[in-house]
């Protein structure tokens, strides 16, 4: 007899709540969640040079958020309209653009923005959301307009690309891990000294040239954090003077003292380290005019540990150390104030992602978990649910049981796992493959690959010297199937909803022949492969166009100070200064593509249930009138995600094809190498309304597959089969030695998002928690690079849909990011409810 078991009733309607918060933290957290009702906030403030051609809003950063396209002119105008003038330096217009930018941002942050300390706060650095002038002169502004707004400009190109179902691309901010460890341990003065040295080593001719200008800009930027700290120090002293409470007064004086040293000098205590980290970090968001888009902290429990230990040894109360961290947590969340009055849909509000990494492997497979790892996990547990910063815990074969126990316990107590899990063996395999493919083995190799860390959600990069442009290019792999079916045409010509105009019949893709005449599946595959090469080339072309604009007009000299390679080359990070210089094509619609190919093979060639013409007609009709064929496509054809070796082989074949195409491309403008990844953010939802019906039985409007996950409902053989399929799609393990890392193969250096939903019953007692722990250990062996766990009961979600007011804090994972369930759109809500919950 097999015993079936229901979840215990008490698991229902229980939502994780914060605990163990001091009155200080409780107040700061509650205040934060008052949102728009707060008197203080960190809403973006706009600043101008005062010229008639000036503007602030850099729309290219938002090309990867198609929902915002319609608002670009509005955003642009309202920031211009609300911009406050900054009195310019008399020589301002004589300087190069990077120098103008460096000076302007510095001027705004030091002399114009208010410097405030929230009640009880232990960390200084409050308002940082700004829209600063692009600082273009008239000629530059004209050139910019031509490149961006004209008929052949980036805006039209991005819109065309998205409207026609290819995906989106744009050179975006953030998404990297700056060299924070250097600032904390050596101070900004170390960076400044290096820049000075390098500048003096230039020949007079070089000093007058582009290199000299860049280094001067970086020198200016390198003093910004120091001078902002000074302003906050003055504010602390002012508050201390009027403070009646002696304890608070002492805190303020200590903060002033901290700020007199950091971030210019090396931090001497844990408190100083967090202060140094926060100011340095927030000013990047100021300079990029973009709050926290994947601007990540890296292995925070590693580089902060020496100071954590030192302060504990010197008598810091461990709980006070956590209190400092909790203040830091609140600060990270204020990034969302940027557009606080706008709200959002489909998880846009959750699109930030200041990711921090915990634990993981060190040299020789050693585990690096330490006391700070646990302290930070406690902070997360006590503060959750809260959106930022996003934690990612790195697991590997030698992860100690104690850490796994803590992780499983935290997952059990939350409605969704409060962190992402990254898997070292598979991730490192991808990074080493990247090293080989891009000839950067001197920068990524067996001796340092374990130092990798994810940015944003789960996008693996190296630390402090790597801008890999993760999520800059988002490609719908499915488009190649469509083009192969039609021989290069859109299946349904695009109609502009605003103008009502329909595209004339134009062949956009290569002519791969009449698919109805293909005799074998291999012939179809060849057409598909040609179209895949085409769409990859096409997205790189769009990206190049946007990259040229950013590299020319949007220097970020402050950030460049924090990325190794920029000072040495005298090159801005936007121009390829970083030692590791990639852009990542994130493959979207993977499983839908694989399943579509499997279905074509099954229906047309293997079983001859229909011919190609009939299938194409069914797709044109969005399956209406072809319901039996659609049912056969949905139910009879093999699918990826069931641990069916033949189907998973197709998944691997698709993966190999598109990743190899990706490696072939480098941008001409900055020599930026393309690399593959799979994070589909929310595109699998939004683009499902753009892409026509697909051969796997999906009608237009039914969601595409998410990142590396099997199509919805396809994983009928349970979670282990799902995991095994995902691992195989990434390349699996080498059978005869010679993997990328030990036996592991990984086609995606960036990694891939994999989400699984479990019913809470899976963790109902200690015995089942042990089983879940073993499942995670099995994932290390067989699975992908990253896993997000939803622990949800569909009843809770339905109730939350009906009574959002009762579930304001209900966090769910969408793909690679968290979102408040009640803040996302109805379609996405329905989708999450429909997602198969793995019951035990």
């Amino acid at each position, binding site marked *: 007899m097999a015993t079936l078991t229901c979840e215990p009733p008490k698991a229902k309607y229980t939502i994780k709540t914060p605990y163990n918060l001091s009155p200080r933290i409780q107040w700061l957290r509650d205040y934060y969640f008052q949102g728009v009702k707060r008197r203080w906030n960190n809403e973006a403030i706009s600043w101008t040079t005062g010229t008639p051609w000036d503007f602030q809003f850099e729309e290219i950063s938002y090309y990867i958020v198609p929902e915002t396209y319609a608002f670009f002119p509005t955003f642009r105008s309202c920031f211009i309209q609300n911009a406050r003038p900054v009195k310019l330096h008399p020589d301002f217009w004589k300087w190069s653009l990077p120098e103008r930018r460096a000076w302007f941002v510095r001027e705004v942050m030091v002399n114009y923005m208010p410097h405030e300390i929230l009640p009880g706060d232990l960390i200084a650095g409050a308002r940082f959301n700004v829209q600063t002038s692009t600082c273009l002169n008239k000629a530059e502004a004209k050139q910019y307009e031509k490149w961006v707004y004209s008929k052949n400009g980036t805006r039209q190109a991005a819109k065309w690309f998205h409207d026609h179902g290819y995906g989106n691309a744009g050179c975006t901010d953030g998404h990297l891990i700056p060299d924070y460890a250097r600032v904390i341990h050596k101070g900004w003065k170390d960076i400044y000294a290096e820049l000075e040295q390098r500048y003096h080593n230039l020949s007079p001719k070089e000093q007058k040239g582009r290199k000299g200008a860049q280094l001067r800009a970086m020198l200016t930027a390198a003093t910004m954090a120091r001078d902002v700290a000074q302003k906050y120090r003055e504010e602390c002293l002012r508050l201390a003077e009027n403070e009646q409470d002696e304890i608070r007064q002492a805190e303020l004086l200590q903060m002033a003292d901290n700020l007199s040293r950091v971030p210019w000098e090396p931090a001497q205590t844990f408190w100083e380290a967090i202060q140094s980290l926060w100011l340095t970090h927030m000013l990047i968001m100021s300079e990029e005019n973009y709050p926290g888009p994947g601007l990540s902290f890296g292995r925070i429990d590693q580089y902060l540990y020496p100071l954590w230990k030192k302060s504990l040894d010197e008598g810091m109360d461990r709980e006070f150390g956590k209190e400092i961290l909790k203040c830091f947590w609140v600060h990270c969340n204020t990034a969302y104030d940027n557009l606080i009055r706008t709200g959002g849909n489909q998880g846009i509000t959750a699109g930030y992602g200041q990711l921090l990494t915990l634990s993981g492997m060190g040299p020789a497979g050693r585990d690096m978990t330490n006391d700070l790892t646990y302290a930070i996990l406690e902070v997360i547990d006590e503060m959750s649910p809260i959106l930022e910063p996003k934690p990612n815990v790195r697991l590997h074969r030698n992860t100690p049981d104690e850490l796994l126990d803590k992780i499983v316990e935290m997952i059990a107590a939350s409605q969704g796992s409060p962190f992402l899990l990254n898997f070292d063996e598979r991730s490192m395999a991808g990074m080493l493959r990247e090293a080989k493919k891009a000839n950067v083995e001197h920068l990524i190799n067996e001796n340092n690959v374990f130092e990798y860390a994810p940015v944003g959600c789960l996008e693996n990069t190296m630390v402090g010297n790597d801008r890999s442009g993760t999520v800059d290019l988002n490609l719908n792999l499915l488009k190649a199937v469509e083009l192969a079916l039609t021989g290069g045409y859109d299946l349904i010509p695009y109609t502009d909803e605003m103008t009502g105009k329909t595209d004339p019949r134009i062949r956009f893709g290569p002519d791969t022949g009449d698919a109805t005449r293909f005799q074998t599946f291999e012939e179809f595959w060849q057409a598909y492969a040609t179209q895949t090469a085409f769409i990859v080339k096409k997205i790189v072309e769009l990206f190049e166009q946007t990259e040229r604009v950013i590299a020319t007009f949007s220097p970020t000299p402050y950030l460049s100070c924090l990325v190794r390679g920029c000072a040495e080359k005298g090159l801005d990070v936007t121009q390829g200064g970083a030692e590791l210089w990639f852009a990542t094509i994130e493959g979207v619609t993977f499983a839908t593509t694989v399943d579509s190919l499997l279905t074509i093979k099954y229906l047309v060639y293997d079983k001859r249930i229909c011919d190609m013409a009939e299938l194409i007609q069914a797709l044109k009709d969005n399956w209406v009138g072809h319901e039996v064929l659609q049912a056969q496509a949905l139910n009879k054809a093999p699918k990826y995600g069931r641990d069916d070796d033949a189907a998973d082989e197709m998944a691997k074949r698709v993966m190999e094809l598109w990743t190899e195409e990706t490696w072939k491309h480098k941008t001409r403008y900055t020599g930026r190498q393309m690399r593959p990844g799979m994070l589909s953010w929310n595109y699998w939802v939004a683009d499902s309304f753009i892409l026509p019906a697909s051969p796997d039985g999906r009608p237009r409007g039914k969601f595409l597959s998410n990142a590396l996950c099997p199509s919805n409902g396809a994983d009928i053989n349970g979670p282990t089969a799902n995991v095994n399929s995902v691992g195989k799609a990434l390349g699996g393990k080498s059978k005869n030695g010679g993997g990328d890392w030990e036996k592991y193969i990984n086609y995606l250096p960036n990694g891939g998002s994999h989400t699984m939903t479990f019913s809470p019953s899976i963790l109902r007692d200690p015995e089942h928690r042990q089983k879940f722990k073993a499942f995670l*250990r099995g994932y290390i062996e067989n699975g992908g690079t990253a896993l997000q766990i939803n622990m949800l009961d569909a009843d809770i979600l339905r109730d939350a849909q009906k009574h959002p007011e009762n579930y304001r804090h209900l966090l769910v994972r969408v793909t690679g990011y968290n979102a408040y369930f009640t803040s996302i759109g109805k379609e996405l809500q329905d989708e999450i409810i429909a997602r198969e919950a793995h019951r035990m």
Partner: protein
Amino acid sequence: MNSLTARILHLQRFSTEDGPGIRTTVFFKGCPLRCAWCHNPESLLPNSQIQWLETRCIGCNTCIQTCPEGNLRRNADGSLRIDREHCLACGQCVEACPANALEMLGRTITLEELLAEVIKDRSYYETSGGGVTASGGEPGLQPEFVAEFFRQLKMENICTAFDTCGLIATTAFEKILPYTDWLLFDIKEIDDEKHRRFTSQSNQRIFQNLLRIAEWMPSLPHLHLWIRTPLIPGATARPDNVAGIGAFLAQHLNGKVERWELCAFNNLCRDKYRRLGIEWEYQNTPLLTAEELTALTEAARCSGFPGELIIPSGATRVPVLESEGEAL
């Protein structure tokens, strides 16, 4: 050897309720008992049956056109009538149904195929101390196959569990137990008259088999014995039954039973009966209350059987919630 075949219902991967760790459970087809509360009615008969899944059906009538015997018909309410008396379970309708709304319950699988399938989760067995469970139906009705299946699994270092109702030939245990790590042995009812009434069979051989196994245990040092008792409202869920079973175990299997699971009744199989067109006596039986489960567990603990080895499991009745979705 690989020409051996078995009649099975299906495989369940990531099974967490049929022995230690993460397991793959193989449900064998055919059972000697007819327990009134059975949760797997589709596993009772050794031969195949067809079932229709209403929610998947798109109403295309492909099946009706396909059936060579004309045994399928659409009822006035749109439901599909399967003439079970004449259905040969040839499977042509199952093959033809585009929506997988018709399902074949039961298939023949070769040893080779089955091994290839269960080996896919080896990593999870290793990390969890899990393995493969033979369940059903009654796997012990196909002893040659199960014994060989287990023998080959042991050669692969995969842990095995044999979930049995106990009513099989003693020789079947003799064949299977040398390759069995966990024996999950059901004792449902201590009273023979009641046992006959509930299951249609006497419990005499079940107890005899258990006593024989107890005798063999010193020579089977790898064998772990778990006893499982279903707690069925109005039937086995009686303190005297639980106490009687406990006393029997304490007296005759002292120190040999590692765990005694008390499995609370659940009604998740209601739809299975409906699909098979069988009236189910327990259709509207509510779950045990938490108090009832506690009382039965208490009776077990007072029976002389070591209390720390008693594990109650399963769902109890959901108390009516005072307010839905309490505010944060």
